[in-house]
């Protein structure tokens, strides 16, 4: 029996080396790597935060405060303790899922994140669906018809998507589609009229309005999300379509494509049935990365559209010197990236038999 087989079966001929099954070892390694990454991220953000010349006491008490009150709050926030003690306390809290209180909102950081993150997930998810569903076909078509007018249009659209600031696109989009044409809802997640008729269940307005069976409200939420999601999708689309085109071009120059065509396979079937399968792994990575960037928070889009999301929360916290919120958000971003990387690894196994 080979060693791999022994390990897989959980039996061991060499207790010192193969006491754990390989999948367990792999999972352990992944978890350890996960933990070390997050610890490093927390340490880096925490210590950089303490080095920044931003005063958390002023963030809490304001500028017009006596030195006595200042010192009392300084002590209350634990800032009089050595940095390593502060960090130790912080990590102890994190292990209990307590990220401390956000100085700028007076609420626990976890509660704040739980409130703002669904808004960002909802926006990013709609955006990535739009970006992916348009970006991949456009990328493939561009590669198929390289140099054609379609390719040129996709290239120009990609260039605009890359280079035009979302802030500007957002404002222009609002002026055109909201103020002039009236096709979409304005800034915010929903009209004020509806906002108070809905008790949040999941925090996702599209889902909550459906759960409530309120189709009118659902339509209103869709009308509000469609524009910011499309603006965000535009830059994702640009990235996804360019990368897909590049991957596909490489495939289309392979000999197996010529062979398939010689054997009489249709062009569409050759591309979608064979070449696309071979670039699926790379495309998944690109989509996952795009999604991660969207989840990280599109600060400018959220600002223009008065979207109460994660990116804006993090930026405000940073500018106010609210380091509990900043470190909490940074850890979350780290978790998102690491998790999406893990998911990518899993998807590799689905799409690419060689990695199984």
């Amino acid at each position, binding site marked *: 029996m080979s060693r791999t087989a022994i390990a897989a079966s959980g039996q061991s001929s060499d207790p010192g080396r193969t006491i754990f099954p390989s999948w367990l070892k792999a999972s352990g390694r992944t978890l350890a790597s996960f933990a070390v990454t997050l610890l490093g991220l927390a340490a880096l953000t925490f210590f950089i935060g303490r080095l920044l010349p931003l005063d958390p006491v002023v963030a809490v008490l304001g500028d*017009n405060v*006596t030195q006595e009150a200042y010192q009392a709050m300084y002590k209350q926030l634990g800032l009089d303790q050595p940095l390593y003690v502060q960090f130790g306390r912080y990590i102890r809290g994190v292990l209990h899922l307590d990220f401390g209180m956000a100085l700028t909102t007076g609420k626990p950081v976890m509660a704040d994140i739980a409130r703002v993150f669904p808004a960002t997930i909802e926006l990013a998810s709609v955006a990535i669906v739009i970006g992916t569903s348009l970006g991949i076909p456009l990328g493939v078509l561009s590669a198929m018809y390289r140099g054609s007018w379609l390719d040129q249009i996709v290239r120009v659209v990609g260039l605009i998507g890359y280079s035009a600031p979302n802030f500007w696109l957002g404002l222009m989009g609002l002026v055109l589609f909201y103020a002039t044409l009236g096709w979409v809802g304005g800034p915010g997640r929903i009209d004020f009229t509806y906002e108070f008729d809905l008790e949040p269940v999941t925090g996702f307005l599209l889902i909550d309005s459906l759960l409530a069976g309120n189709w009118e409200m659902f339509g209103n939420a869709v009308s509000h999300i469609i524009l910011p999601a499309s603006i965000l999708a535009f830059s994702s689309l640009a990235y996804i379509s360019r990368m897909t085109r590049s991957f596909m071009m490489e495939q289309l120059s392979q000999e197996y494509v010529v062979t398939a065509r010689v054997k009489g396979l249709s062009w569409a079937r050759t591309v979608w049935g064979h070449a696309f399968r071979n670039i699926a792994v790379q495309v998944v990575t690109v989509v996952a990365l795009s999604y991660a960037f969207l989840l990280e928070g599109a600060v400018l889009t959220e600002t223009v559209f008065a979207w109460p999301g994660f990116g804006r929360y993090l930026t*405000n916290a940073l500018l106010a010197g609210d380091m509990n919120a900043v470190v909490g958000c940074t850890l979350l971003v780290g978790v998102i990236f690491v998790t999406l990387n893990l998911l990518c690894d899993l998807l590799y196994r689905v799409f690419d038999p060689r990695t199984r």
Partner: protein
Amino acid sequence: MTNRNDVTGTKRRSAGRRLLSAAAVAALCAGAGAAFAATPKNALVMAWNVDAISTFDPAQVGEVVTNEILQNTCDTLVDFDPADERKVQPSFAERWDVSPDRKEITFHLHKGAKFPSGNPVTAEDVAWSLHRVVKLNFGNAATLTEFGFTKDNVEQTIVAGDNTVTFKLDKPYPTTLVLQSIAANRVSMVMDRKTLMANEQGSDLGNKYLATRTACVGPYKLTRWNAGESIVLEANDGYWGKAPGLKRILIRHVAEPGTQRLLLSQGDVDVARDLTPEDLKDLEGSKDVSIVKVLRPQLFYWGFNVADGPFSKEKVRLAMRYLIDYEGLGKTVMTYLGVPRASFAQLGAVGALDAKEGQPFKLDLDKAKQLLTEAGYSNGFEASVLFGTLPHANPIAQSVQQNAAKVGVKLSLERMANAQLFSKVRGREYQSAMLAWQTNVPDAHGNASRLVFNPDNRPEAKQTQYPSWRSAYQDLDLNKKVDEALLEPDPAKRDALYATLQKDVMAKGPMAFMFQMNNVAGVRKDLKAWTWNGFRAYYELAAK
């Protein structure tokens, strides 16, 4: 074998058609999904940048947004007259008596009022609310300690009686000043003692409980606050006073002025609070929107650290005032935002110099050069100017920098986050800085007591709540004049004392005051009676 280019041609046309169809369908779907609503008839909807809210505890609140919300949800003992902020009118106190020696003020309270919790409002609640401000000792405690109330004596000097509350003062302060400073201030907001004490954590007197809610009595009650998202105030049905004109006040957090403008133009909000001068100018002729503005008691100034270096010399500081293009900036950058003002006493305050006397400076490079030469800096000098994220700070700093360069003064500009700016200025770690200061009192004493008076200039004294200390500036003669003006019983003589003080400070003080700021907003014309002055907005008076 099929020619690949032929295939491309066919597919190209087909793909183009499909794309166009998809785009048309997407557009139709989006259009069909849109559902719009004008603002509700019984509600005031406002777009405002409300990021700064971090607590609703009146003992701790120090910024304008929360202050305004509290003013509409929590009654104070007296209130500013909407038409003339220098006058006070009864609020939770129906009337007040003053002892002949001016050292006791007795407030007679409304009877039968109840908090939204159902608890009755008592004189003990009123007195306790004031005590807790002093005991908690946040920045707002200074509003009371400046008048002699301390942690040790406050329970004996602010006393509840038979439906009355009496202030026992250590000095015969002007009664109007006490009413404006304390009785109309958030420190006298009547808090629900039973609710707060039932939710006390440690000995915080309900401070943490108030981080996300209110517990007081007023025409409106706070029913929802989602940080960075929205605020909802509902009319307080059991309110003892007149019922407000509108049932709900809905405030949506909108940080971007351009977005606020769009919402206002579309009629999705009734009031937009953070419009830029460009937006305001464009909206000026609108048939649907009015631009309303009112002076507020906030001054934008250029402060100098006089501990050492060129700014320690009076003539250098005076020269800097002649480098400010008050008129040019007033007509450009500061249109709508504010008016030129060189005096520390804001326009509209008791004792303030009028607009002309309170702003005697103009851009005069020759005069500046002459003063620099007299100060021993004929070749100029180098210095830094710190400023924060206020939108007008950058262009003003640049204008001053350009003018200064013409007389040999090289100013380096450093922009930073406000929290960083405050830290540096509070720590005296700067040469000069441009920032804003706001008083809570429509009386010259409000600013004289902080911007001129400095009780102890030693670095270790850390009198950081005094901008005068932050400038390392102490003039014992001016200190004396501040005290003298404060206690002068004759209003005419008091005005004269403040006039002298203002002129002295304009000549040698550590701050070159530049502009007094406006409250400015775009208001839909179908909203009636939007009422405000420099000290508060009166939501309860608005109607549709």
